[in-house]
C-alpha cells in the first residue's frame, strides 16, 4: 500500500447548474461572527465551566506525584487522610463540571442549530416568486435537508467539542508548565510530526468526506428511485439494470471510502506516534533530570500523568476539526440564500380598478431568446379569458406575466393602471392569484391546508369553500373532518383531491383576478367539467385567465386567445373563432366531432 489516489468519479460534483447562489467567504464569515455574538455568553460560560473541570482533573496526578515523592523520601507524616479528602472533593467537582460541560455544550450547539435552520427557512420563505419559478425548489430542498443535516453534526458536537478540546489542551499544557516547567519543552518535540501530518491530511480530508457522503447518499437514492418507480421498472423490465446501477453506486461510494480510509491510515500513525513521543520524551528527559537532581520523582510522575492525559483533548480536536471543515461548505450553501436580493417592490403602489392590460410585451428566460414577442392584450374586469395553443408556445409564460411573477423584458403589464412588476409579491397576490398544476398538499391538517389562504377563516367558511369545489362530500366523510392529517405521511389524497384543495384555497383567498394554469387537468373528465362549472358560479364577476389544454374550457370562456410561437394569433369568442375557420376552428372540429 503506497497510497490511494482520489477516485476519478466525484459524486459530490454538481450535475446541474447551481440555481441559487452559494455564500461568498465574506458572507459566511459575517454570519459566523453574528452567530457567535448572539451566543457569546453561552460560549464564555462553556469555557469557564470547562476550565474548572480540567483543573479539577489535574488534581489527581498532582496529588499522586506529591504522595510518591514523600513515600520515596521516606517522609514520616503523609497526611494520607487529608490528601484522599482533597482527592474526593476534586473528583466530585470534576464529575459535576464534566456533566455541566456536556450539557452546556449541547445546549449551545442546539441553540445555534435551531437559529440556523429557522433563519434559513425564514429567508427561503421570503424569496421572490420569480426566483422560485426560475430556480425551482429542488436546490432549496437539498439545502434544507442535506446541508442542514451535515451542519447539525457540526453545530451539535463539533463546535462545543472543539471549544472544550482547545481549552482542555491549553490548560493541561499550562498545568505542566506551572507544575514542572522543566518538562514543558519535552512536549514540543512531537509538534513538527503532528503539524506536517495534519496539514497533509486536512488538505485532502474535507473534499474526500464530502464525496464519500455524496456517494453514500447516491446509493440510497438509486434504491429509493427503484422503489418509487417499481411499476415502471417492472413494466420496462429494468430490474437487472437497476441492480447494476445500485452496484455501480456501491462501487463509486466504496472507492471514496477506500480513499478516506487511506487518509486516516496516514493520520492515525501520526497521532499515535505523537502521543507516544510526548510520553516517551517526558519520561526519558524527566528521568534524566531526576537522576541529575534537577527535578524530583513527584514532579516526574505528575508530568508523565499529565502528558498521558493530553491524548484525549488532542484526539477531540482532530476528530471534530474534520467535521467543521465539511460543514463549512454546507454553511456557505445555506447563507448563500441571504445573497439573493429580497423582493424590491414599491409598497405604496396600488391599482385603481382591475383592468389587466398588456402592452407590447416581450419576454424571454434567456438572453436573446424571446418566448413572447410583442404581445398586447386587454382583459376587462369580469372577463373569462382562455389561452389555448401548442406546448411551448408561451401560454404559461404569459399567464405568469399576467400574475406578476415575472417582469416583462420590454413593454408593460398593468393592473388597474399600476405596473404589476413594481408591486411587492404580498401586494400582488391580494389582487391576482396563480394556480398551476403544482397542487402541493402540505403536511398537516386539512384545516391548515386551507387556512393558509385566509388565516382567520372560520370552519364554516372552510366548509363553504370545500363545497364550492365539490370537495365537501369526501371532506365530510373523513373521520376527523378538518383535523384529518393529510400530506406525506398522513392521509394520501388523490391528485384530483389535491387539485380541489388548491381551488378551495383560491375561493378563500378571493382575489378579483385569477390565472388558472391547467388547474383542473388532473381531475377525471366529467368531474373536471362539473368542478369548473361550480367554480364559475363561485368566481362569478371575477376576471379569470385560464390556460387550457382541454377545449371545453375554452368553449366556456368569454374570450379565447390562441397563442402560437410567442404571439397571439387569434383572438375572439368561441363562436367567432369557429366562424373564422382558423387554427382553433380546425382543432374544435376534430375535438368535438
Amino acid at each position: 500500500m503506497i497510497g490511494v489516489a482520489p477516485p476519478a468519479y466525484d459524486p459530490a460534483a454538481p450535475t446541474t447548474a447551481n440555481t441559487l447562489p452559494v455564500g461568498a467567504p465574506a458572507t459566511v464569515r459575517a454570519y459566523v461572527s453574528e452567530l457567535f455574538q448572539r451566543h457569546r455568553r453561552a460560549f464564555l460560560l462553556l469555557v469557564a465551566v470547562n476550565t474548572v473541570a480540567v483543573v479539577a482533573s489535574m488534581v489527581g496526578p498532582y496529588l499522586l506525584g506529591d504522595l510518591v515523592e514523600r513515600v520515596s523520601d521516606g517522609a514520616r507524616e503523609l497526611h494520607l487522610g487529608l490528601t484522599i479528602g482533597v482527592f474526593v472533593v476534586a473528583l466530585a467537582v470534576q464529575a459535576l463540571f464534566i456533566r455541566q460541560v456536556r450539557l452546556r455544550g449541547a445546549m449551545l450547539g442546539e441553540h445555534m442549530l435551531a437559529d440556523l435552520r429557522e433563519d434559513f427557512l425564514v429567508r427561503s420563505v421570503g424569496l421572490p416568486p420569480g426566483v422560485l419559478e426560475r430556480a425551482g425548489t429542488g436546490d432549496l430542498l437539498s439545502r434544507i435537508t442535506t446541508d442542514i443535516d451535515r451542519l447539525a453534526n457540526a453545530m451539535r458536537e463539533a463546535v462545543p467539542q472543539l471549544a472544550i478540546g482547545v481549552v482542555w489542551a491549553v490548560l493541561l499544557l499550562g498545568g505542566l508548565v506551572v507544575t514542572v516547567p522543566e518538562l514543558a519543552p519535552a512536549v514540543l518535540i512531537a509538534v513538527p510530526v503532528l503539524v506536517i501530518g495534519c496539514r497533509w491530511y486536512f488538505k485532502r480530508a474535507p473534499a474526500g468526506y464530502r464525496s464519500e457522503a455524496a456517494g453514500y447518499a447516491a446509493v440510497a437514492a438509486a434504491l429509493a428511485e427503484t422503489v418509487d418507480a417499481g411499476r415502471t421498472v417492472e413494466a420496462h423490465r429494468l430490474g437487472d439494470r437497476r441492480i447494476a446501477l445500485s452496484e455501480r453506486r456501491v462501487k463509486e461510494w466504496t472507492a471514496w471510502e477506500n480513499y478516506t480510509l487511506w487518509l486516516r491510515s496516514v493520520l492515525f500513525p501520526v497521532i499515535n506516534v505523537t502521543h507516544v513521543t510526548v510520553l516517551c520524551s517526558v519520561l526519558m528527559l524527566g528521568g534524566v533530570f531526576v537522576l541529575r537532581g534537577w527535578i524530583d520523582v513527584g514532579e516526574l510522575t505528575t508530568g508523565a500523568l499529565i502528558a498521558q492525559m493530553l491524548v484525549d483533548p488532542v484526539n477531540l480536536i482532530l476528530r471534530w476539526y474534520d467535521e467543521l471543515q465539511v460543514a463549512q461548505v454546507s454553511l456557505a450553501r445555506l447563507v448563500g440564500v441571504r445573497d439573493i436580493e429580497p423582493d424590491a417592490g414599491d409598497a405604496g403602489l396600488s391599482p385603481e380598478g382591475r383592468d389587466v392590460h398588456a402592452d407590447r410585451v416581450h419576454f424571454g428566460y434567456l438572453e436573446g431568446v424571446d418566448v413572447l414577442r410583442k404581445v398586447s392584450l386587454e382583459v376587462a374586469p369580469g372577463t373569462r379569458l382562455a389561452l389555448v395553443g401548442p406546448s411551448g408556445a408561451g401560454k404559461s409564460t404569459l399567464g405568469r406575466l399576467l400574475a406578476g411573477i415575472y417582469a416583462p423584458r420590454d413593454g408593460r403589464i398593468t393592473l388597474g393602471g399600476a405596473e404589476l412588476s413594481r408591486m411587492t409579491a404580498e401586494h400582488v397576490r391580494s389582487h391576482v392569484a396563480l394556480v398551476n398544476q403544482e397542487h402541493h398538499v402540505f403536511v398537516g391538517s386539512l384545516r391548515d391546508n386551507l387556512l393558509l389562504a385566509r388565516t382567520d377563516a372560520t370552519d364554516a367558511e372552510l366548509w363553504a369553500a370545500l363545497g364550492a369545489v365539490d370537495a365537501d362530500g369526501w371532506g365530510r366523510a373523513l373521520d376527523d373532518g378538518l383535523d384529518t392529517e393529510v400530506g406525506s405521511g398522513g392521509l394520501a389524497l388523490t391528485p384530483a383531491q389535491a387539485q380541489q384543495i388548491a381551488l378551495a384555497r383560491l375561493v378563500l383567498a378571493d382575489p378579483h383576478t385569477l390565472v388558472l394554469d391547467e388547474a383542473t387537468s388532473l381531475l377525471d373528465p366529467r368531474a373536471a367539467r362539473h368542478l369548473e362549472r361550480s367554480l364559475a358560479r363561485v368566481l362569478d364577476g371575477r376576471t379569470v385567465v385560464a390556460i387550457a389544454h382541454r377545449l371545453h374550457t375554452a368553449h366556456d370562456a368569454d374570450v379565447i386567445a390562441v397563442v402560437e410561437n410567442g404571439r397571439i394569433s387569434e383572438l375572439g369568442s368561441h363562436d367567432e373563432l369557429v366562424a373564422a375557420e382558423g387554427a382553433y376552428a380546425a382543432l374544435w372540429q376534430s375535438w368535438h366531432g
Partner: protein
Amino acid sequence: MQIQDLPYPDPGVPDARSGPRFLWWLGRNQLGGQFKSLAWGLLHFVSVSALPFCVGFAVQAVVDRSWSRLALTGGLMVLCGAGIAVGDTFLHRAAVTNWITAAARVQQLLARQAAHLGSALTRRVAAGEVVAVSTGDVEKIGWFVEALSRFLAAALTIVIVCVGLFVYQPALGVVVAVGVPLLAVSVLPLLPRATRRADVQREKAGRATELASDTVAGLRVLRGIGGEELFLDRYRRASQEVRHAAVRSARMWAVISAIQVLMPGLLLIAIVWHGVRLAREGRITVGELVTVYSAVMVMSYPLRHFEEIAMAYSFSRPSAKRAAHVLSLERVTDTGGTRAAEAPAGDLYDPDTGLLAPSGRLTAVVCGDPDAAGRLAERLGGHPAEEGVSVLLDGVPLDELPLDSARTAVLVQDKDPVLLSGSLRELLDVPSSGAVGAEEALAAAQCGDVLVALVQGSLDTEDPMDARITERGRSLSGGQRQRLALARSLITDPEVLVLDEPTSAVDSHTEARIADGVRELRTGRTTVMFTSSPLLLDHADRVVLVHEGAVVAVGAHRELLRSEPRYRAVVTRETEEESASRDEQAVLRSELGSRDAPLRGAAEHDEGPLRGASDDDDASLRGSLDDEAALRSALEEIEESA
C-alpha cells in the same frame, strides 16, 4: 473481502427469519474480517495498556537511580508505540472494511429485493420500509456487526490487564480485579433510557426536516397565495421541539459522562489510599503504585467498548428486524409462471370485461371511472396485484407465463409512469425490439420542446441526449414528462402496448399531433389506449366503452358519439345534470340495470385486495363472473363479425 473488490458479485441469500439471525448471518459471512479486527485490536489495546507499566518502570528506575533500567524502559516504550500505531491503524482498517462490506452487502440485497418486488412495492407499505432500511438502518446494522470483534478484543485486553496486574502486584491487583467489572457495567443501566431519548430526538428531527422540506416543496404555492407565517410558526415550533428533545437527551449523556469520570476516579482513589499504605509498609514499590494507577486510567479506553456494544445492539436490533422483514417479503403471484417462456402474438382478450384488442390495431378504451380503468390496464399486462381471471394473448393466459415473458409481450404504461433520473440517453435505453429509434419515438411523442428545455437546463452539453433528467423528471412540466414517458414506451416497441391516459396533461394541439405520430409508429402492432380525449379517440381503429366493469359498446368514435349517450357523457364532459336531462339515458339505465348488478358486486369486492378472509365468497362470485364473461365474449364475437 476488500473494499476495492466491492460490490459482491453475489451478495448471497440472507437468513431473514429474524433480526438477530440476520445479524448473525452477516457476521458469519465475514469471519475472516472479524478475526483480523480481533487480532489487530488485541495488539492495539494490549500495547496501549502496556504503556502504564512503562511509566511505572521509568519512575521506579529513577527512584532506584538506575540508568540502564531507564534506558531499557525507553526501548520498551518505543516498542509499545510501534504496537499502538500499527495496531490502531490496522484495527481501524479492518473495522471499517467490516462495516463497509456489511453495509454494501445489505444495500445490494435491498437493491435485488426492490427489483424483485417491482410493482408489488407500490401497493404495499413496503416502499417506505425499503427506503427507511436503506437510509437509516444499514448504518446501524453495519456498526453492530463491525463492533463485535472490536468489543471482543477490548474485553480480552481487560481480562489480560487484570490478570497481569494481579500477577505483577497481587495486593493492588485484587482491588483492580474487583473494581473493573463494576466500572464496566456502571453506566449500562442508563443506556436504554439514553438511547430512547436519542430516538425521540431523531424522530423529532426527522419531523422537523419533513416540515421544512414540505414547506420548501410547496413554496411556490405559499408565495402565490399566502400563509407563510402559518408555516413558519409551525416549523419554529417543530424546530424548538427538536432542540428541547436534544437537550433532554444531552442531559442523560451528560450524566453518563459524569459517571464515566466518577467511577474510575473512585477506583483510583481506592488504589491510591490502599497503595500508599502498602508502599509505606514496604510491601509494594512506588513504581508499582504509579503503574497500577496509570493502568486504571488507561483502562477507561477499552472499557468504553462495553457501552459501545450495548448501544450498538440496542440501536441495531430494531434495524435488523426491519431489514429482515423487508428482505423476507414475497410477491403475491408466482413470477416463474406455470408455462414455458414464449412470446405469443395475436388478439388480446380479457374474459372478465369482454374487452378485445385485435392484433395489429389501435383500440381505444373509454371508461368513466379512472380507477377502474387503471385496474383494467394493469390486468391487461398479466400478473396483476389482485388475482383473477387471466387476460389471454393469442389464447395464452398471461398470468401463467413467466413474469418476464408477459412483460416482454405486453407493456402497460400506467397513469403515472416514472422518469428515472440520468441522461436522456440512459432514460431511453430500455430493453426493446430495436425496431424503433429514439429519434422516431421522440418525434412521434412531440418531444421537440422538451429537448430544447433539457439543453437549456443542463450544465455543459449541447446534445439533448446527454442532458440530465432529475429525479422523477421534476424539472419538467407534467405534459413534458408524459411525452418523454410515451417516447420511452414507443422505443420498447412491444407486441402489445397498453397506454393509460398517456396525454392527460398535454394540450389539445399537441395531443392531436401525438395521436397521428403514435398511430403511424404503431402500424401493424397492437395498441390499447385508455383515454377520454376525443382527439385520441378519433384516431383509433376501434373504440370500446367499458361501463361498470363490462364492455357495453364498441364502434368508431363518431358513431358512438351519435348512438351512445353514456359515451357522449364521458368524452364531451357533459355534467351529470346535462346527461340526466336526456330521456334516453333513463331508459337505457333501467335496461342495463339487471345486467350490471352482479358485476357491480364483483367490482366492489375487487377493491379490497388485502382482505383475504372472504375467499369463499370470492370463488362463488368468480363463477358468476365467468358466466357473464362467456356471455359477453359471445356477444362480442357476434358484434365483430357483423
